[in-house]
């Protein structure tokens, strides 16, 4: 339906940063969608993680449960699953710095601003990373804290940086 996606926040990365935070989730919409595209790493062999924010601050507690399938162009598919992590993996492929290699994905978030319920998400993504392999991920997760989530924090693991990427938050019109 035309006009169903309402843009709330957008972060365009043009120089190296270790993390990007988008906020603006409130009770206006029931479902929110994050889209990230053309995310490239400034540091080879790094993963990108995701945490939910409360009042703009990432929650780093061990309350991230995830389950999904890693779709690999070069070998057998594998699982992406675990309970009580301190973050969600957005991708299972290691990021590369090579030109043309990038990662893209969409994440839907449910119940985020309801402080009486857990926050759920589904994700789908694809990227070409280290070793020049196309890998995707289909799955979801739950943040097992009854709190009002107001955003998402993406970060490169360890001392990694991203130097390109567009991150956008939309609300799905009721």
């Amino acid at each position, binding site marked *: 339906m035309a006009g169903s996606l309402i843009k709330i926040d957008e972060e365009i990365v043009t120089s190296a940063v270790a993390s990007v935070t988008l906020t603006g989730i409130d009770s206006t919409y029931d479902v929110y969608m994050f889209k990230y595209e053309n995310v490239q790493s400034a540091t080879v062999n790094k993963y990108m993680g995701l945490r939910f924010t409360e009042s703009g601050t*990432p929650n780093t507690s061990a309350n991230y449960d995830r389950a999904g399938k890693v779709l690999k162009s070069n070998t057998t598919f594998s699982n992406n699953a675990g309970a009580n992590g301190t973050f969600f993996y957005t991708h299972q492929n290691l990021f590369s710095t090579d030109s043309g290699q990038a990662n893209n994905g969409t994440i839907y978030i449910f119940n985020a601003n309801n402080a009486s319920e857990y926050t759920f998400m589904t994700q789908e993504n694809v990227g070409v990373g280290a070793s020049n392999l196309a890998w995707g991920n289909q799955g979801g997760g739950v943040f097992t804290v009854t709190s009002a989530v107001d955003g998402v924090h993406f970060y490169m693991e*360890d001392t990694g*940086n991203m130097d390109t990427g567009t991150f956008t938050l939309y609300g799905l019109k009721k």
Partner: protein
Amino acid sequence: MNIEEATALAEAEIEEAKPLYKQVNNERLEFSSADYDQAVIDLANSKMYEANEKWSQDRAENYPSMVEFVEAYTEKEILTESAKWDAYVEKYNQVRTDFPKPS
């Protein structure tokens, strides 16, 4: 590797990597003290995982496939042809060599 060792390594690496930046509201800001503290915790956890647990994931992702196993085992047991089984064993052992369990 224990948490104290991992934290010491992480602190040194984060110190070396400074300054680190974050992007919020389209502003590029240097990490706060709390951000650096969290980066040390995350890096230490990552090092603990790499040192103590990652071998298991690496083995799971690199073992020859179940299809390969079934075909090789079946040919060996039913047809008494062991060429594929021998190849399977070689690949299996190579994965265990490539990704050793920490002592």
